[in-house]
């Protein structure tokens, strides 16, 4: 056995318990989602379904209003990402490239707002949104979500932007382009991968957001996916777990797949944003 083979065996042996604990919930989630309903409430529980009950998915889709919640989550996700990135691009460019008085103060301001979570400000936020007449509106989630993710987006974008060589822009200036022209035509295309990563993170944060949705939305019609699924296990006398698990599977799988495929890019971007 070569030393690399030995290292492979030892590493996987060491990681095995962690990997099992991480994968266990997904196995339970998918297996429950595909169990026929009469195999859910039995003790001892069966590990695997006797047949794949794909009818759970369609039954869940109808009985939980999944389509509506999916649409709401998509609207909030795209709206929030767009709003956040529009505000973040100029701010990140200024912090990465321009020298200005108060830039240190501005960075500290960003860092401090990054620490505030919506849940700590929950009453103030509720009254703020009520004052705007936006309770139970998806717009409320777009606005507040964008504001709470903004510092993170700026921070992440600017640490990417700082790695783009200055000479490229300077060459554009020499060719007679203004700052804004060179920003839009030269700089932003170079920053496209960074923009994509930042957008994906903002979207995932919005997709997974719970506390704001719980506080600011009132009717089931407006609920986003996490809130919808929470209400499924909240009040009901008898919880249809196979449907709940079908709903969690459908709403987590796309994000998990995107994340798995882009993991290397996303994680290196986040490490850059978090540590610097």
């Amino acid at each position, binding site marked *: 056995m070569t030393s*690399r*083979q030995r290292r492979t065996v030892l*590493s*996987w042996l*060491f*990681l095995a318990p*962690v*990997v099992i604990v*991480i994968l266990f*919930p997904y196995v*339970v*989630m998918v297996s429950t989602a595909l169990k026929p309903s009469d195999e859910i409430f039995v*003790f*001892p*529980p069966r*590990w695997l379904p006797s047949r794949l009950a794909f009818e759970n998915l369609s039954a869940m889709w109808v009985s939980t209003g999944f389509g509506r919640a999916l649409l709401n989550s998509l609207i909030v996700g795209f709206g929030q990402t767009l709003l956040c990135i529009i*505000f973040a691009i*100029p*701010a990140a460019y*200024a912090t990465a490239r*321009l*020298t*200005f008085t108060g*830039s240190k103060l501005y960075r500290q301001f960003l*860092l*401090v*707002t990054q*620490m*505030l*979570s919506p*849940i*700590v*400000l*929950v009453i*103030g936020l509720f*009254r703020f949104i009520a004052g705007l007449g936006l309770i139970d509106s998806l717009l409320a989630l777009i*606005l*507040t979500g964008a*504001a709470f993710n*903004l510092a993170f987006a*700026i921070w992440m974008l600017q640490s990417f932007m700082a790695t783009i060589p200055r000479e490229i822009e300077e060459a554009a200036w020499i060719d007679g382009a203004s*700052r804004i022209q060179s920003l839009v035509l030269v700089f932003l295309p170079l920053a496209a991968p960074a923009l994509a990563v930042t957008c994906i993170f903002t979207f995932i944060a919005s997709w*997974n957001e719970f*506390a704001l949705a*719980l*506080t600011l939305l009132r009717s089931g019609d407006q609920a986003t996916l*996490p809130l919808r699924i*929470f209400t499924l296990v909240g009040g009901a006398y008898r919880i249809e*777990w196979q449907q*709940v698990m079908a709903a969690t599977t459908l*709403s*987590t799988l796309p994000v998990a797949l995107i*994340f*798995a495929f882009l*993991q290397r890019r996303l*994680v*290196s971007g986040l490490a850059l944003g*978090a*540590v*610097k």
Partner: protein
Amino acid sequence: MRRHTGVSGFLAFVMILPSIVLTLWTVGYPVVDIAVTSIHSVNRFGRTTGFVGLANFAALLADPIFVASFWRTLIWTASVVAGTILVSLPIALVLQEDFAGRGLARVIIMLPWAISLTMNAVVWRWILNGQYGMLNALLFDLGLIDGPVEWLAQARPAFMIEIAIGIFVSMPFTVTILLGGLASLPSEIYEAARVDGASAIMRFRALTLPLLKPFINMAIVLNIIYVFNSFPIIWVLTQGDPANSTDILVTYLYKLAFRYGRLDLAAAMSIVMLLILLVFSVAYASMAMRSQSAE
């Protein structure tokens, strides 16, 4: 040259202004509103009535559930953060090694990150279900229990399980920071240490740990802030019950505001929590600034 700085200074101001306005409007307004509410009394229709000074804070300190939640938050934060660091450090060290399938291992370790805390907690609630959950199935098959156990119905096991889940969901982020730190360590000194005959354990204690310390500190402070603020795990699993026995500050705050309708006490509680967070934010800001100026 001077003129140039002036122009870019103005441009910078225009560019950062929208972000400042949005943040001050949506985050600043609630902070001010909470501060004002915390020193007034609020009637049951949510209207602010009279100035009461620090009476809300005094009432809060006299509330045994608040005091219990405060201490429980300390235990919650300290256990989750300490557990996360202790689990993440060896994982990061292994993931740093070169072995077959490392890419796959990294994807799996990072996976809980992509899944929302709410979904994680919902799935765990089913796993822990007192009658039909898979944890009972597993322990039954292993012969460790004779019949179903209601894991979430008693305070102590429920809270311990919540801490374990907290560690499990904080790990991907922490491993990422530590991997970033490990990648930045200069390989030459390791060669030198190996030539000098230092064992792996000696190299870890004399080189890796001290060099990694800024990253560990950063991970600790960021995790303290995140875990202190963490709401969905406890809310989905137990809602702070039975009888407020798993409440931490954020869950009790939510109950005070939206279940018991005590906006005045909730506002005072928010202020207390903001002050606690401020201490850690300042610690984080100074660390982040230091690491940036060190480059």
